[in-house]
Every structure is written in structure tokens, then in C-alpha cells.
């Protein structure tokens, strides 16, 4: 127990110092931040936070981010889970090929594909729409999500599948009634990852969105960055304020990462 908590606290400390620095940095002046990055602020600049919080822009961007991220999460989870289910459970010609096909997506750097991607979104008329950001994000998240899902789905005891078959369900209802409820840990994991990726994604909204009122928060940081200088204290304050939603999402999702979901299902 001592060993356990001891280790946990040490690692947590290492992890936390930079994070606390972020939060505290938001209370400093730029100069203070530079010469005293780790200590308490010489003078608490509450206004850094207050100015952000009291501005409508922050809330609007947060709303946009949330909207984009939730659409991304829902779509990623739904689309990937379905595909992974088919790939995990149905034997069909070309299923191995398909899996490889999805894997390819992990192996090509997005940076290369930005321009063609933009052209595609433009041709679909999705420029400057939320969907124009969401769809590519989902597409790029699919490879990993499908792999994770498939891996997990295969661990669902096959006896349950058989029981469901005998109870009169087919693939689809088995997916809905048994696979998904039993895959809560991985659903939550994928959801968190998709959320974080979307939340912090910068390049996609940058390229696809033109109207300021659709900007998610990563584009909002821009206003603190000039050509030759950056107001880091404000950036830090801003980032601190945008971590909070992710933390909430994390708490909501990780409740589902629980053990023993299949306990009691089968004997032997």
C-alpha cells in the first residue's frame, strides 16, 4: 500500500509540476513568467483570467469547440464501433484487406494531406461549416478507433454471442444489446481520445473554417500571438481555462472504465 501510494505520488508530482505551472503562469505578467516560471506569481494578475472569462469570445469558442468535439466523438465512436464490429465478428471475403486499409490511415502524416483534403472539403461545399472540420477529424481518428474496438470486441466472451443468437438476436441486435454495453471501457477510452484530439486540434479548423464566430479555442489563442511576440501569460490562462471541459469529460467517461463487466457471465 505504501509502495503503491508512494509511487503514485511521486509520478503524480512529476506530472503535475508542469501543469501547475500552466495554471499559475496564467496569473503572472509576461516578465514574471519568464524569470519566475515555477514560483507563485509575484503579483497575482487576476485580470488575465477575468478578462478572458468576461469576454463573449471565450464562451463562443468554447461552445464551438464543444460542438465540434461532441460531433466528432459521437461520429467516431458510432462509425468506428460499427465497422470494428463487422470486422471482428463477421467473416467475409476481404475483411483482412479492409482492416489493412484502415490501418493505412495511421501511417501517412496528415500534414501531407492537408491541401488535397482542403480541396475535397471545398468541393463538397463544406468549407466553413462544422461538418467540414468534423468529418476529416473523424476519418483520421477511425484507424485507431477501429483497431481498439476490434481488439476489445474480440474479448467479449463468445458464449454471450451464442446465447444472444439462441435468444433470437442477429448481429445487429447483439451489437446493440450486448457488445456495446460490455465494451464501455473501450467506448469511454476512444471517446476520451477522440475528444482530446478534436479539442486540441488546430490545423483542421484553421484550414476549414473562415468565420471567426465558428472558431474553436485553439484558433482563439492566435490573438495572443503576434508575428514576433506572444503573450504567453494569456495563452497559459486561456489554456488553463480550456482544460477544464476535458477534465469534466474525462471524469464522466472514465466512470465507465470499470473492471469485471463480464464477471458472472460464464462458468469455466
Amino acid at each position: 500500500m505504501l509502495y503503491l501510494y508512494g509511487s503514485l505520488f511521486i509520478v503524480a508530482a512529476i506530472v503535475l509540476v508542469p501543469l501547475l505551472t500552466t495554471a499559475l503562469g496564467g496569473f503572472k505578467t509576461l516578465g514574471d513568467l519568464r524569470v519566475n516560471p515555477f514560483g507563485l506569481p509575484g503579483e497575482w494578475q487576476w485580470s488575465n483570467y477575468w478578462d478572458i472569462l468576461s469576454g463573449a469570445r471565450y464562451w463562443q469558442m468554447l461552445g464551438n469547440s464543444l460542438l465540434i468535439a461532441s460531433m466528432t466523438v459521437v461520429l467516431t465512436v458510432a462509425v468506428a464501433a460499427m465497422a470494428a464490429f463487422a470486422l471482428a465478428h463477421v467473416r467475409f471475403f476481404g475483411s483482412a484487406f479492409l482492416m489493412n486499409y484502415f490501418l493505412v490511415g495511421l501511417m501517412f502524416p496528415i500534414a501531407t494531406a492537408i491541401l488535397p483534403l482542403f480541396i475535397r472539403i471545398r468541393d463538397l461545399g463544406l468549407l466553413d461549416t462544422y461538418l467540414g472540420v468534423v468529418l476529416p477529424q473523424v476519418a483520421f481518428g477511425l484507424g485507431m478507433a477501429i483497431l481498439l474496438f476490434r481488439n476489445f470486441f474480440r474479448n467479449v466472451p463468445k458464449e454471450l454471442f451464442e446465447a444472444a443468437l439462441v435468444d433470437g438476436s442477429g448481429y445487429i441486435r447483439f451489437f446493440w444489446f450486448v457488445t456495446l454495453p460490455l465494451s464501455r471501457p473501450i467506448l469511454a477510452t476512444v471517446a476520451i481520445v477522440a475528444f482530446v484530439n478534436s479539442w486540441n486540434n488546430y490545423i483542421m479548423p484553421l484550414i476549414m473554417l473562415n468565420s471567426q464566430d465558428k472558431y474553436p479555442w485553439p484558433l482563439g489563442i492566435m490573438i495572443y500571438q503576434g508575428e514576433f511576440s506572444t503573450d504567453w501569460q494569456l495563452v497559459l490562462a486561456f489554456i488553463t481555462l480550456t482544460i477544464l471541459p476535458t477534465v469534466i469529460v474525462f471524469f464522466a467517461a472514465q466512470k465507465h472504465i470499470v473492471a469485471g463487466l463480464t464477471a458472472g457471465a460464464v462458468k469455466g
Partner: protein
Amino acid sequence: MSDAAGIIERPSPVASRGRAPSRRRAGAVGGHHRNIGGVWPVLVLFLPPALVLFTLFVILPMGEAAWYSLFDWSGYGAPEDFVGLKNFETLWRNGAFRTALTNNGLIILVSLALQLPLALWLATLVSHRIPGTTAFRLVFFLPYVLADVAAGLIWRFIYDGDYGLVASLASLVGIATPYVLADRDYAIYAVLAVVVWKYFGFHMMLFIAGLQSIDKSLYEAADLDGATPWQKFRTITLPLLSPTIRLSVFFSVIGSLQLFDMIMPLTGGGPSNSTQTMVTFLYTYGVTRMKVGFGSAIGVVLFLICVTLAFSYRRIFMRHD
């Protein structure tokens, strides 16, 4: 492309071998049961959304990018200046790219040798429901959540030779303050540390999720069989988690090769390209210099490396059987 799916779990051996690949979880559904009726509705309903999205927004753009790699093109107008493989040649002759390759190798090494074990260790610590686990999970996951800009910035502070943590530590020990990020020889190690810090939480989450599906009664049985915690880890956790671990290794390798977000704000590839990775190289030399053709060539090379690695990964693991 090669059978990369085999990376994740060995392809099922010829049915005639009579038993499933040894490392797969017992009783798992995976592909082992026969098809029951109603296959078509599933295929027709479940696959197309992913297929369409993926093809449209990943595969086609990639194909186009690969096509651009044969052009000298700035990204404006249409690519017209066909140069064949010249972009690849240029790339091959570029010293910074070779540094980038080595760096990617280092990152892979560190990810596998340091990051994954750390993630696994922490995952086993916080996968039980003991008081405080949720908090610890969150804390460990936070670096991953943190925006790259912030992470890069903060670690610059830490490494700062004048005011940074490293500086104060160094003065505590009484050695000369290292300017870590400015040092061509050490900067990459500094970057590696950040990489571990930033991304171990992700793997930890995967492991936690994977650990949840290991039957608790196996640990009970092992307890009674007299297993020490380490033995339980070795003989129960590791083998049963191995699908997840293999997945994690895969993501880790691919992710290391694609590492980018973290490095740009931290060092931007410097000093003197010593922390360049393939993708930062791609970004600085391809994207920001608007040499779309050249950038695409880097993408293609990176892709080929990924595929090769994926393929040999599978072979190496196959040999273990």
C-alpha cells in the same frame, strides 16, 4: 500493402491446426465462430459509413499527395512541373532528413523501452478501485490532454538555462547550468523526456481499458497457487494483456514515426536540425516552405517506412511462436 492487420493479432492459423493462436484470449468471439445468417445487413449497414468517410477524407487525399510527390509544386494552381523521383533524391541527400530518421529511431526506442513500461506499470497501479485512483488516472492523463503549445512552452521553461527547473537543479548539485535545448547533442534527449511525459497517459488509458477485461478470478486462482504480485503480473497480466500491448506497441511505433505536435513548439526541430523528426522535417521543409511536392515525397517515404516496420514487427512476433 502488406498484411498489417496481422500485427495486431496473428492471423488465425489454418483451421486444420486445430487450435487457435496461442496468445488470443480464450473464448473470445473474434472471428472464430461461424457466420450466422444476416451477414449482409451488417456489412451493408456497418461498414460503409467508415469506408466512405475514410476513403473520402484519408485515402484519396493521401493518394493525391503521393501523386504530388512527383512534382515540383508550390501548392498554388495545378501541379505541372513533373520531376519524377527528383524530390526523393533531394530528400535522400539531405543531412537533416537523416538526422530526422535517427531521431525517429530514438523516439521509437524510448517509447518502447521507457514509455510503455511506465504506462503499463502505472496502469496496473491505478486499474484497481482503490481510493484515489480516479484522481491519479486523471493526473496521469492530463499531459495528454494538455495542448501541445502549452506543453512545449512549459518544458521550454523547465529546460531554461537561466530560470528553469533544470537550472536550479543543476545549481543545487553544483554543476554548470546546461542549456539543454540549445545543445545539439542533448536537445533530442530533452525532447524524448517530454515525449514520454506527454504521451504515456494515452497508453496508460489503453492499458487500463485492457486490464478491465481480465477476469478477476484468475488472480484469485493465482493467489491461491502462491503467486507473488510480480509473478501474477508476469504470468497472468502480461499474457492476457498482450493483445492490448501489441496494439500499444503498434500505436507507439507509428506514433513515434509521426511525432510532430510536441516538437514544433518545443524546439521547432533545432538547434541545427538536431531534434528534427520526419514530420517536423516535412513541416518545415515541405509545408512552411510551400514545397508541396517535396513534402509529399517525405510523406511517401514515411509511409513506406511505417509499412515496412509494421510488416517486420509482425514477422518478429510470429517467430516467437
